[in-house]
């Protein structure tokens, strides 16, 4: 079985539907391309194997958290606990992988923690009908606290070979990202996956149509948790150890990337390819400004202005 449904088995509907989803993000793709070219000009090493590896590695965790945030925003939710979940993933990886269960056991622990936290959050939000922003804000304290309990100060270890594989001179991060994107396409081709859109935009209508709205939303939270702890594992591999507050910046960056990518706050609006492009743009912006010699403070200001501009420009075009 191929990973992407082949054109033959899907008839003449799947691809036109996919192509339609590009319409809203075309201009974003152009902007990303422009930044990519600018980056290539400023830093020709990008096109060498090691430069490419370094760049994708710096982008990879942001791409994962952008996806984690986007999937929730598509269901009409949001998470303020993504950063804390990344930190927890990092400390779990750093404390288990060097232990008796090894890398496989550690990775399993990271994955199960992510799925579990996500599913629990989702359950609370969906079944108790509480606002996601409040639940995940509270969750961020709990999860962040748990990370500090496990590892009060940076420490632990990641086996060197794993760090070399994920964060060395290999395109592993890029390959992983491609696999994750293909898995996402696969998920979106399932009834449960596509239900995300209906559950996010018109939950009452979707429920009346027989869509398992609650299940689709809880599943989205679980997947989001998995992506977040996965990002934590990668960050731990990059640094070679665990840091209980390393993920903090990811919460707001994930929202920024999703918004840049055209994901709406009301649910059901936007595409994952947009969110990924948004995260790439954010990551490119930081690199380009670094090469242009912006001071860190100026970088923040410019970043904010670009985000507002990116969200505002499509609004002007509608008129």
């Amino acid at each position, binding site marked *: *079985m191929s990973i992407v*449904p082949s054109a033959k*088995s*899907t*008839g*003449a*509907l*799947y691809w*036109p*539907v996919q*192509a*339609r989803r590009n319409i809203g993000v075309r201009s974003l793709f152009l902007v990303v391309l422009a930044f990519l070219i600018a980056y290539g000009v400023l830093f020709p090493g990008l096109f060498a194997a090691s430069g490419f590896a370094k760049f994708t590695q710096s982008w990879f965790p942001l791409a994962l958290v952008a996806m984690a945030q986007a999937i929730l925003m598509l269901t009409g939710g949001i998470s303020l606990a993504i950063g804390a979940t990344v930190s927890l993933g990092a400390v779990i990886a750093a404390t288990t992988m060097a232990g008796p269960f090894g890398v496989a056991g550690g990775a399993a622990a990271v994955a199960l923690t992510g799925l579990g936290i996500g599913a629990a959050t989702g359950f609370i939000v969906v079944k108790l009908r509480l606002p996601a922003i409040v639940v995940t804000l509270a969750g961020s304290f709990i999860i962040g606290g748990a990370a500090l309990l496990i590892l009060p100060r940076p420490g632990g270890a990641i086996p060197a070979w794993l760090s070399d594989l994920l964060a060395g001179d290999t395109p592993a991060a890029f390959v992983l990202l491609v696999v994750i994107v293909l898995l996402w396409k*696969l998920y979106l*081709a*399932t*009834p449960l996956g*596509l*239900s995300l*859109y*209906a559950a996010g*935009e*018109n939950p*009452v*209508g*979707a*429920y*009346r*149509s*027989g*869509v398992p709205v609650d299940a689709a939303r809880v599943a989205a939270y679980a997947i989001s948790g998995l992506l977040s702890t996965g990002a934590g594992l990668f960050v731990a591999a990059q640094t070679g150890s665990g840091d209980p507050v390393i993920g903090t910046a990811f919460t707001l960056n994930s929202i920024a990337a999703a918004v840049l990518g055209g994901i709406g706050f009301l649910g*059901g*609006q*936007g595409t994952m390819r947009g969110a990924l492009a948004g995260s790439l743009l954010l990551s490119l912006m930081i690199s380009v400004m670094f090469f242009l010699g912006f001071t860190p403070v100026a970088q923040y200001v410019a970043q904010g202005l670009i985000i507002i501009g990116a969200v505002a420009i499509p609004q002007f075009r509608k*008129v």
Partner: protein
Amino acid sequence: MTTVAPLLAARGVSKAFFGNPVLRGVSIALQPGRVHALLGENGAGKSTLINLLSGALRPDGGEIEVDGRAVPRMTPALARQAGIAVVQQELSLTASLSIAENVGLGAYPKRFGLIDYKELAARAKAACALVGLNEPLSTPVGHLALGRRQMVEIAKALYRKPRVLILDEPTSSLSSTETKILTDLLERLRGEGIAILYISHRLNEVMALCQHVTVLKDGTCTADRSLVGTDATGLVRLMVGRDPGDLFPKWQPFVSTTTAISVRKFSAGLMRDVDLDIRAGEVLGIGGLVGQGQEDLLLGLYGAIPGRTASAVVNGISGLPGGVPKANALGLAYVPADRKREGLHLIHPILTNMMLPAFARLPALKLRSRKTERETGKSLAAQLAIKGDLQRPAQALSGGNQQKVALAKWMPHDPLVLLLNDPTRGVDVETKREIYLMLRTFAAAGKAVVLLSSDTSELVHLCDRVAVVREGRITATLERAALSEEAIVSAAMGAEKQKVAA
């Protein structure tokens, strides 16, 4: 008479919300091969009955039967399994998904756990063909006009090959062509033995399409009988308990020659290069198929969307208002079609809704006078027969009363031009009559009324002139003498290009 067990039936069902009885001992039986009309004014309990039949709500008393067997705990899932499909008044569509993905939503064909797009395309195409939807199946529903979305909604119900089809005001946003397609389709489905429950405020449709009628009034069933030998007048009498002869107020010729609004080469949204004169003291109808740009015409004049024009005079001032506050200052008021979203703030008290335009005019930081507000609210409520406590949220009102509030809020400002976007859509007969009367009185006082309507009979009987819009242009302006449903429909469909009067 038939002795076949009804496919779906309610036996003496009752339902109350917060202690207010909405349905009291109502029975209805849907027979195969029959189009059953459910009539009643807004608030009579029609929607509640549908929700009970489709399992969205559970009755407090009585039971729901499928194929003659009582179902103790009806749920939406059970209803779907039993082949019951409901076309709700509020659309259940997802704007960012394609037509096909919406039509199949909740019942996608699967292959290896994935959506089988090929099968979906084939089945969605068949369902769309039934309702005459020929847009590409990959078109996102968000790109479609309201009438087309309604057709997608109907296609979605048909996709599941229902045995019982419940349609809650399916034609309220459809053009006459689309309505024709739908009625032909229902005829055919009836021939195939499907039981159809049809809810509409348009009596001529009901008379033409249905065989049996149940009339609800204040939560009780006032009639359950064959439509044979019943006429529209009789039906209205059953619904409101009085004669409908005076649904439309008597038309009187008007003499005013003052122009309230005059635009030349006006463009806004879909509208292109329109010349239009709106006279004081007239009711000017705007007709045409749904989504030809009529709404943009109103919004453009109101300054709610940007517009361009070669020359414009609005109540003696030259130039377009260019913004809503300016338009209000020039004496324009606009009542939107979507009263739930644009016309009212549903969770806020009725009184606050009535006072909103006033808030815009008062000095921003001056303290409000609750007493004056209450008095204004009371007199408005009395004028428009809006009953009950004005502190209740607007959503507590029935559709017709909500519409009255949306209209009422402009009255204290004495607008010179009233722009109305389909004000009687989904409104019961009694409220319609009140609104018509109000509009005529308003025009008689020398004001101008611009009435955009999807109800052709309303245009014919209420208006002094009707401008018919097609593809963003006014294709005909029909004077009172030339007004007939046929003339409007043919102009709307481009069958005739003449009859343009001065």
